[in-house]
């Protein structure tokens, strides 16, 4: 069995809009792979091409260039779709249906028999915490409840791969945590999760690997640990100076006061060992030493800035 469950190979999409058929390049170049059993984050600011990429992968939009494979089959392939669950962005469902009716419809589309559909619907309604609203039409659901029923419908076919487009958008912190926990549960069950988002703390808490897309072009792909830890931004040293005062600070270091004494922010290229030896020799007491590595937010902002410079 292949380790890669989804492959986007040089995908691009250009729309032609309006009377004059104006060209809009929604996705310029997207290549990445999602591996079995991982949680893969697809990150990018609003309008960067995340949803269009996912729509190409789901067969809703035809690529202008490139090819995509889901579960070893070219998109859109019905056999692959049988093993796939998808939650669209800001999902819209048939609001005249109750959760039970809606999940029954989805189950029928997966050719699941009636008794099994009922059993699965019961399990999923319970799992996403909608038991008390099972007889209520979807039009009376809140945004968070709709997102939960959306997740439930994406699991109705018992998929190997679950693709969620912006599953956290519009949710309160508790709702976001529930979705995060659910994704981690899916991973524990051996399923693969691909989700798009621009909410970075969620990514840091859940994703094994990420791809970042800016203005329709993928800039970075890889494990979070690899993308982030390689870049040491600075080292923070918290200390209380001795009687002899502070030795001379390395070039580019910044000093500020804090309740424990002083906070020295050493640049990434500074010789931290030499500085520590000097301050200890001067009688200072060192409280803490914190290497400040690049956060996902730093990386995101830097890539966005690179993109802006490139565009200029």
């Amino acid at each position, binding site marked *: 069995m292949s380790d890669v469950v989804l492959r986007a190979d040089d995908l691009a999409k250009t*729309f032609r809009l309006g009377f004059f058929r104006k060209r809009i390049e929604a996705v310029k170049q997207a290549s990445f792979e999602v591996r079995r059993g991982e949680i893969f984050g697809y990150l990018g600011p609003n309008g960067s091409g995340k949803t*269009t990429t996912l*729509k190409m992968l*789901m*067969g*809703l*939009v*035809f690529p202008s260039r490139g090819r995509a494979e889901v579960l070893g089959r070219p998109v*859109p392939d*019905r*056999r692959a*779709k*049988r093993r*796939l669950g*998808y939650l*669209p962005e*800001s*999902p*819209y*469902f*048939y609001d*005249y*249906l109750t959760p039970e*009716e809606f999940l029954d*419809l*989805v189950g*029928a*589309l*997966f*050719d699941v028999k009636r008794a099994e559909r009922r059993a699965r619907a019961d399990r999923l309604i319970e799992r996403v915490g909608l038991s008390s609203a099972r007889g209520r039409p979807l039009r009376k659901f809140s945004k968070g409840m709709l997102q939960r029923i*959306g997740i439930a*419908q994406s699991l109705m*076919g018992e998929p190997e791969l679950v693709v969620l487009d912006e599953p956290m958008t519009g949710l309160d912190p508790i709702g976001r945590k529930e979705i995060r926990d659910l994704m981690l549960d899916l991973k524990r069950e051996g399923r693969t999760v691909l989700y798009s988002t621009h909410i970075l703390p969620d990514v840091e808490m859940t994703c094994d690997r990420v791809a970042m897309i800016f203005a329709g072009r993928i800039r970075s792909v890889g494990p979070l640990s690899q993308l982030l830890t390689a870049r040491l931004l600075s080292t923070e040293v918290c200390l209380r100076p001795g009687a002899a005062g502070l030795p001379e600070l390395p070039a580019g270091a910044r000093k500020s006061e804090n309740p424990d004494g002083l906070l020295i922010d050493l640049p990434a290229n500074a010789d931290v060992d030499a500085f520590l030896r000097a301050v200890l020799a001067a009688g200072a007491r060192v409280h803490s030493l914190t290497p400040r590595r690049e956060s996902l937010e730093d990386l995101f902002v830097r890539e966005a800035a690179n993109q802006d410079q490139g565009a200029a």
Partner: protein
Amino acid sequence: MRRIQAIAWNTFREAVRNKILYSLLFFAVLIILSALAMGNLTLHEEIRMTRDIGLFGIDAFGVIIAVFVGVNLLYKELDLKTVYTILPKPLHRWEFVLGKWLGMLLTLAVQMGVMALVLGVTLWLQEAQFDAPMVKAVWLLFVNVMLVTSIAVFFSAFSSPFLSGFFALGCFLVGRSVPDIRALAAKLGPLAKTVLETGCTLMPNMHLFYPSGAIVGAEEVSVHRDFVSASYLLTTTGYGVAYSLIVLILAMLIFRKRDFV
């Protein structure tokens, strides 16, 4: 089959829960019942009046409901983006269109069934029967409505509801007027005649579905007498079904290539 059935059933359920359709049905029933009052204004022609008004009501409201359902139920899937949830499921796009169409037909069958039932009760109150000619006439109107639905679905596969409704209704009006257009063409010059004749050949001849009062096979047919023969019923049904399927296949081909942005 289960997938098509599921889409069809859901489409029917959506229509059943739509209040506008109830309003249309209410007005149709009102028109049919008005035949009772109108009949009193005539001299010994009450039953004839009930049959004519009743069939007119079923025809007119059947077509209006067909255009409404055909245009709206597919377009709403795109407008409300419910299609984003459904199409990534293991379902061919043609299955989706076919399921929607079958659901619409089921809706129309029930609606026309109710209208026919009301007409039957009205006739019964006048001590008349909903006899074989009436059954044949309502059947032909249903085939007509099926064709109108297919045309509405075809246009809504690529156009806005307003334009789709406009075109579908236009096709119906032109289709119903085919004999008149042909008669007009016969009086015109060769170029205009060719253009109109070609148009009449391409357009669905919907006059076939409402032939009461027309000459068929050198005889005038009327729902007040024997109406049409079984072979007429069969060939006209075949024509309606074949035309509907061709239009529906075109709609499926357009839908197959469409981006859902």
